[in-house]
C-alpha cells in the first residue's frame, strides 16, 4: 500500500524515513501541534515550497536542465488565482479557473521557451529563461492596471476559507473550527497530492528516460528517445506544477505581488533548497524546503536567544546578533554543501 502510494520509491535509509515521518506528522497536525499564527503560516509555506522545490528538482535533478524561470511559473499561477478572483468574484470556481489558467499559461510559455532553446546547449536554455523571467517581472511591475504593479493585488477568497467561517461549534483540540483551518488543510492536501504525483512521474518510464537523458543524452538518442521532446515535456510539467504551487501560495496569502512570487531571491532560495536536500531525489525537496523555511523563519529568534545567553561575554553577542541571521544562514549553507555534497538525502542514503 505504502509502496504503491510512493510509486515504489522508498526512502531507503532509516534516518531519512524517520525524518520524513516526523515532517509529515508535524505538517499534517501543524494547526494542533503548533497553534500560533506564525507557526501555521510557516507550516503552510513549507508545504508549498516542498512542491515548488520538488517541481524544480524534476527539471534540474532528474532532467539535468538549469532554468532560472521557475519563479516566473510560480508567479503565473499566483497571478492567475489573483486575477480570476478579482475579476470573476470570490468563489471556488474562480480559484479553480485561476489555477488551471495559470498552469496552462505556464506550460505554454515553457513549451515555447523549450522548443526554441532546448534543441541547443543547456546553457542557452538557462540564459533564455533568465531573460524571459526578468522580462516578465518587469512587465508585471509595469502593467499596474492589471497586476497592481509593485503593490501587487489583494483579493478575496471564498468565505469558507476565511477566519469568520465556522464549520463546527466550539473548538477541535483547542483550535478554532474555522475557515482558516480548512484553508490550511486545502493547502496541505493539495501539496500532498502534487508531491505524490511528482513521485509517480519520476518513477514512471518517462522519469527513467529523463534520468537517462541527464546522464548521457547522446546515448539516450542512440537508443531511440527523442531528447528534445522529453526535455520539453519535463519543462512543461515542471512549469505547470510550479504554477499550481504559486496558486496555493496566493490562496494562502490572499495577496500576490512581484516580491512574493517573482523575485530572483526566491529563485536562489529554491536552488539552495534543492542543493541542501539533494538533487535528483524528491525527498530532498522535503528536507531542503523544511530546513530552509524553518531557518528563514526561526533562525533570527534562535540567534536572539543565543545572543542573550552569552550577553556577558565579549564579541560573541555581536556575532550572534539577531540581525546577522542571513550571515549565519550563509554559513549553514556552506557547511551543508561541504559536509553533504550530494545533499542531505544523498548522504543519508549512502550511509
Amino acid at each position: 500500500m505504502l509502496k504503491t502510494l510512493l510509486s515504489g520509491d522508498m526512502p531507503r535509509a532509516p534516518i531519512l524515513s524517520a525524518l520524513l515521518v516526523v515532517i509529515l506528522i508535524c505538517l499534517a497536525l501543524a494547526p494542533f501541534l503548533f497553534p500560533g499564527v506564525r507557526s501555521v503560516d510557516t507550516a503552510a509555506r513549507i508545504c508549498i515550497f516542498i512542491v515548488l522545490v520538488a517541481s524544480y528538482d524534476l527539471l534540474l535533478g532528474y532532467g539535468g536542465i538549469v532554468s532560472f524561470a521557475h519563479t516566473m511559473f510560480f508567479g503565473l499561477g499566483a497571478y492567475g488565482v489573483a486575477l480570476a478572483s478579482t475579476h470573476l468574484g470570490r468563489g471556488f470556481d474562480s480559484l479553480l479557473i485561476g489555477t488551471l489558467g495559470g498552469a496552462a499559461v505556464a506550460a505554454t510559455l515553457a513549451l515555447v521557451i523549450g522548443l526554441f532553446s532546448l534543441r541547443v546547449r543547456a546553457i542557452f536554455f538557462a540564459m533564455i529563461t533568465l531573460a524571459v523571467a526578468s522580462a516578465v517581472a518587469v512587465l508585471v511591475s509595469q502593467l499596474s492596471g492589471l497586476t497592481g504593479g509593485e503593490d501587487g493585488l489583494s483579493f478575496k477568497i471564498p468565505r469558507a476559507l476565511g477566519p469568520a467561517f465556522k464549520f463546527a461549534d466550539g473548538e477541535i483540540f483547542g483550535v478554532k473550527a474555522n475557515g482558516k483551518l480548512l484553508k490550511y488543510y486545502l493547502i496541505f492536501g493539495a501539496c500532498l497530492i502534487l508531491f505524490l504525483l511528482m513521485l509517480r512521474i519520476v518513477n514512471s518510464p518517462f522519469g527513467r528516460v529523463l534520468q537517462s537523458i541527464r546522464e548521457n543524452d547522446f546515448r539516450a538518442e542512440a537508443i531511440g528517445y527523442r531528447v528534445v521532446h522529453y526535455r520539453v515535456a519535463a519543462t512543461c510539467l515542471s512549469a505547470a506544477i510550479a504554477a499550481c504551487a504559486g496558486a496555493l501560495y496566493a490562496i494562502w496569502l490572499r495577496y500576490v505581488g512581484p516580491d512574493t512570487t517573482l523575485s530572483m531571491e526566491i529563485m536562489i532560495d529554491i536552488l539552495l533548497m534543492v542543493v541542501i536536500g539533494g538533487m535528483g531525489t524528491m525527498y530532498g525537496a522535503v528536507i531542503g524546503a523544511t530546513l530552509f523555511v524553518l531557518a528563514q523563519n526561526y533562525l533570527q529568534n534562535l540567534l536572539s536567544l543565543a545572543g542573550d545567553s552569552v550577553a556577558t561575554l565579549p564579541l560573541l553577542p555581536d556575532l550572534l546578533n539577531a540581525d546577522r541571521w542571513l550571515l549565519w544562514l550563509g554559513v549553514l549553507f556552506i557547511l551543508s554543501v561541504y559536509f553533504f555534497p550530494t545533499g542531505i538525502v544523498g548522504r543519508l542514503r549512502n550511509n
Partner: protein
Amino acid sequence: MSDPILKLEGVFTNIAQYHILQGVDLTVPRGEVTMLLGRNGVGKTTTLRTIIGHWRAHQGRVLLDGTDITGLPTPQIARAGIGFVPEDMGIFADLTVEENMILAAVSGPIDQTRLQWLFTVFPALETFWKKDAGTLSGGQKQMLSIARAMIEERTLYLIDEPTKGLAPAIITTMARAIKELKAQGASILLVEQNFAVAKALGDSANVMDDGRMIWSGRMSELTEDTALQERLMGLSMEAH
C-alpha cells in the same frame, strides 16, 4: 551475394573545422561480421557516429537496407533497427542494470525469452540485476552496454571497440556474445583494435587511413598477407 545491409557512398563528415571523413565508401554484407580497422584517429569512430546520426554527413549517402537514412535524426535511425554500442559504453550509472535494460527495450516490455538468453551469455547481468550500473566493474559495464543493444533484435549492430581495456576472460565473453549474435543472423559492424579478436570474429574487413577507406576485402585475405597488413596498418597481426 545478397543486398548489403548497410552502404556508405562517398561520405564526408566535418567536426568543427576538421575534415574527419573524406569520402568513405563502405559495404556491410547481411548476416556477417564486418571489421573496421585502422590506426588511432583515422575516423573509425566518426564513421560509426555518422551512421547513427550523431555527426551529420555533409556529403555522400548512408543507406540502411536500401533506404537513405542520411540526415535523419538519431532516434529515428536507431528505431529503424540499429543497435549502437559506443566506445565509452554510455551506461546510465545512476540507474540499475534492470532500468538500463528496460530503457533499451524501446519497442515495449522486455522479451523474457531473449532476456534469459542474454543471462546465459552474460551471467553477471543476472547477478547484478538490481544494482546501480555505476557500481559495476569496467568489464561488467561493457557487458551491460552490449546487452542493452542486444535486448531487442536489430537489423544492424554498430560496436565500437568492445574489448578495449578488458581482462582476457571478459574479452572471451565478449567474443562469444558477438558470435552468438551472428549465429542469430545479425549483421555487425565492429571496430576493433585487438587483432586476435578481429581475426577470430571478422568475415570481411575494411581498413581506414586518414578519413578514407584504403582497403576492403575478406578477413582471411588480410590475415594471410603479412606484407599487406604492414602496408595498410603499419604492423603485423602476427605480432598480436
